């Protein structure tokens, strides 16, 4: 904990209030209004431009694609001439029937729990910025960090389909091919990752300082 004492606030003032902008890529400070960072040449923004619109747009696209990802088959398996189609949930149930509880848990966690929790978390963070939240800013910050960190792991299921398709091509005995859900699911994960990346955590703290104007007032 002694490492925390190393940084004492000079004043409780944000870079923006001091007329400064901090580069989101390398952390260099520059006067507000400067276009590009002197050190890493990244575009400078005191807050991500149009963050709210972008976050919502990617999030909604991600949610929409998550629906066909669950309805259509992820895998099309042909064994001895008969074809069967497996959805995300179906595949996990099949694993439980094999007795592979742990792997079934990993699949459900990565393909169902993480995406749904991520939709809810991003929406909650956005609503919290607009209307305030029952959660403290620290809790919301943690929620954001977990959401950003864990989202990419949903891609596991797409890679499972890729390797099964590559491997199980034993002609008449067994063959596996990807279903339309694989593409929808991959896009849903990518869109949700973009949504989380566009969220600017500084918005959480801004909303504490100056209560955001109510849309209806």
């Amino acid at each position, binding site marked *: 904990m002694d490492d*925390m004492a190393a940084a004492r606030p000079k004043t409780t003032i944000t870079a923006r*209030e001091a007329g400064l902008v901090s580069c989101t890529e390398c952390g260099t400070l520059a006067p507000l209004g400067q276009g590009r960072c002197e050190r890493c040449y990244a575009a400078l923004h005191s807050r991500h431009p149009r963050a709210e619109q972008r976050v919502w747009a990617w999030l909604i696209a991600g949610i929409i694609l998550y629906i066909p990802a669950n309805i259509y088959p992820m895998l099309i398996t042909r064994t001895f001439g008969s074809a069967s189609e497996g959805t995300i949930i179906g595949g996990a149930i099949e694993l439980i029937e094999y007795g592979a509880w742990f792997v079934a848990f990993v699949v459900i966690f990565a393909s169902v729990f993480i995406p749904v929790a991520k939709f809810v978390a991003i929406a909650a963070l956005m609503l919290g910025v607009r209307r305030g939240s029952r959660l403290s800013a620290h809790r919301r910050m943690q929620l954001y960090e977990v959401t950003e960190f864990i989202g*990419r792991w949903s891609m596991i299921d797409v890679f499972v389909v890729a390797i099964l398709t590559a491997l199980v091509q034993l002609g008449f*005995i067994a063959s596996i091919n990807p279903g339309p859900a*694989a593409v929808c699911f991959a896009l849903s994960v990518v869109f949700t*990752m973009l949504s989380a990346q566009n969220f600017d955590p*500084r918005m959480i*703290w801004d909303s504490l300082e100056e209560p955001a104007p109510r849309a209806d007032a």
Partner: protein
Amino acid sequence: MVKAMLTRHPIMENLDRLVACRSCDLLLDRVIPPPGKVSRCPRCHAPLISNKRSVIDNTLAAAVSTAILMTAAIYFPFISLAEAGLSREASVIDAIGAFANGWSAPLTIAVAAFIVVIPVLRAAALIYALLPLRLGNAPAKGAARSFRLAMSLKPWAMAEIFIVGVAVALVKVTDLATVTLGPSFWAFAALLLIVVFENTTLCEWTIWRLLDPKRR
């Protein structure tokens, strides 16, 4: 009132002594923590400056290992499957090509990017940015851009997620047929460890300071 003070304060000349929290924008005195320690933002507790040891050496080691392991992963056999006299060998390239047929074809490009192209590109960008520093030279032209590219591509490099996916897939097929793991599989498993190593040893703040020509 604070704002009024600051307009008189020669803050613009003293930017080097300040740091803003990247998560909550709080402006703070720049205090470099002792080696091995991390300073955190007093308001949101996000890491502010971490003073890790041997940052350049460790990051370069991770990047060079990634490049070598990925080359091995592409050339060596990945996994083979045998059942009833039939056998099938799949390389990493086959896994990438799994979506090549039909309307899922664009997914092939994405999978290739996630598991091979982006990890290799990141490794190359890190080596380009850091090797001159390691050799005691000035940063190469475009080193800052190169390092920034490597950091922004980080969420999209998914080699470690791929190998976990493969492990899940293997559970599904072990009952179906005999599975043999090739050197490429182990190269990817090692990549998982390299990613963890890079995550714990890389310190962006230190590298940015070293890349800054003004502050060397």
